[in-house]
């Protein structure tokens, strides 16, 4: 499915490029002068006292890399074309190679100082929360990792991007800018996503007819010192188990309904950012023919201080619960046979970042974690042996241009 979509969009993009090249060359200037190229590259290191995260981190792991390269070009005043290739290695997860991260045709219909309005199509980043759209670019994140409870890595494929159409608008109100984004399309999922969707269940089943809708309303004051946003996303897919597989799941729908409130303030050298998320995951008839609903909640708050333009120190508190009515995971343990602490995670992060130039970002973080909800089973296959309390040290060096 994802390969098909990739080729479909690659060919659409090529057609657009050919057509518009001819158009642009009829005017003044050569189009190659107007293509801007950017990229990023990172190397991370993780060390944990118990449990493995981002590779075999109990012995120290360097298996955390992100690399991307993108190009954008405006063939006509109102049109912008852009595409990015992404390579990512996250611990022992099977590398997926280089992927088409986005490929976008953007048509800005209205573009004045007071209003802007446009539409986009292609492979788009979902407009969700403050950080989803640039989640793989280290310098744009509030720390080395995004808050895991909110920007859950194992649901990344579902929430991150989609082959879709979108509309956007913004208006300058004088005291600030209000913006709106809406998107509808098909998420990019693979076999691993299907298993993750079923809470790590060992299924070879498939998800078909998957679709996602995302909307975000934001406000930012005129000098950008504070901003607010509310985002909503709704995923729906039809799960079909593989014939004769054990345990016997049943055919049914999966729904993921997410709402997020985001807020960020800057006051002189102080910085505060926080997001709160409601995540409902509903399985309709898949487990024993009954409906299962997990009403999850998660939030984080980060207080940071810009010691100088280059140095930034921060303290972050994160909490996430699979089900708000079962915060300690007792019912979760009974119904799934997994440890109770796999239903939540509470952690505190101490971080320091050094950005000597635009290009370079160096970070270090200490995580003190209670709970394993976002701990990947892949790195810790002995599920009963996953430890509730664990600490992690992360280092990262990143370059961009």
């Amino acid at each position, binding site marked *: 499915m994802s390969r098909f979509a990739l080729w479909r969009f690659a060919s659409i993009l090529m057609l657009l490029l050919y057509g518009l090249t001819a158009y642009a060359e009829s005017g003044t200037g050569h189009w190659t002068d107007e293509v*801007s190229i*950017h990229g*990023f590259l990172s190397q991370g290191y993780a060390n944990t*006292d118990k449990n493995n995260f981002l590779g075999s981190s109990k012995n120290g792991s360097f298996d955390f890399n992100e690399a*991307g390269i*993108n190009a*954008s070009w*405006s063939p006509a*005043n*109102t049109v*912008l074309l*852009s*595409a*990015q290739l992404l390579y990512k290695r996250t611990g022992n997860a099977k590398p997926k190679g280089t992927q088409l991260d*986005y*490929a*976008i045709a*953007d048509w*800005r219909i209205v*573009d*004045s*100082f007071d209003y*802007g309005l446009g539409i*986009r199509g292609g492979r*788009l*980043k979902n407009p969700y929360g403050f950080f989803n*759209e*640039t989640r793989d*670019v280290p*310098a*744009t994140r509030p720390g080395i990792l995004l808050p895991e409870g909110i920007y859950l890595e194992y649901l990344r494929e579902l929430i991150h991007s989609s082959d879709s159409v979108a509309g*956007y608008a*913004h208006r*300058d109100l*004088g005291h600030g*800018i209000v913006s709106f984004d809406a998107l509808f399309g098909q998420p990019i999922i693979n076999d691993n996503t299907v298993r993750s969707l079923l809470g790590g269940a060992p299924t070879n089943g498939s998800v078909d007819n998957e679709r996602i809708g995302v909307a975000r309303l934001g406000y930012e004051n*005129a*000098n*950008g*010192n504070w901003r607010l946003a509310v985002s909503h996303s709704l995923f729906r897919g039809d799960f079909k188990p593989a014939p004769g597989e054990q345990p016997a799941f049943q055919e049914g729908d999966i729904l993921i309904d997410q709402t997020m409130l985001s807020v960020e303030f*800057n006051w*002189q*050298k102080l910085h505060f950012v926080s997001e709160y998320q409601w995540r409902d995951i509903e399985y309709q008839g898949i487990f024993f023919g009954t409906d299962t609903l997990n009403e999850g909640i998660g939030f984080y708050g980060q207080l940071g*201080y*810009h*010691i100088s*333009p280059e140095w930034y*120190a921060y*303290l972050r508190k994160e909490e996430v619960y699979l089900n708000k009515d079962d915060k300690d995971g007792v019912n979760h343990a009974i119904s799934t046979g997994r440890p109770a602490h796999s239903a939540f995670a509470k952690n505190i992060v*101490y971080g320091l970042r050094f950005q000597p*130039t*635009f290009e370079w970002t160096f970070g270090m973080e*200490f995580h*003190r974690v209670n709970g394993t909800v976002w701990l990947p089973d892949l790195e810790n296959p002995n599920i009963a042996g996953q430890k509730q309390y664990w*600490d992690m040290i992360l280092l990262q060096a990143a370059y961009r241009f």
Partner: protein
Amino acid sequence: MLNQFFQFLRPAILFFAVTASIFALAENNHNDTSEKSRHPEVIVPEDLPYEALSLNQIRAIFSMRVRRWPDGSPITVMVLRDQNPIHKNFLKSTLQMLPHQLRRHWDRYIYSGIGQGPIVVTNQGEMLEKVRQTDGAIGYIEEGVPHEQVRALAIR
């Protein structure tokens, strides 16, 4: 051992933050008196048919939110590197924004494909030359730098 380390870390960070705040405040007061006289000016090519723009319009341009002049022709934004003191001063005293606010917008455009970043030039000489040569360009220079065939744009 990690346990003890974390117990040590909390008061250490607190102490560090308080000390840094005091230094930062002292530094701020110092900067306010020394940089007041030299606000960078916004410059455009001489033939651009606009005399003055509001502060919010200038911000809309430099944050890359608006892509076209009111007549429909493209805007080309030129800036110095993030670390350049003139750039920092332009953000602080002309746009009255924090440096990372503008960068945040540019990053979202550049790395999610929904816009473009500004053109980065290395010095004021290159800034002057590129603004002069490019239709619909906009940039900035320090007040008092001699300039021909570019014009300062008033902020009303």
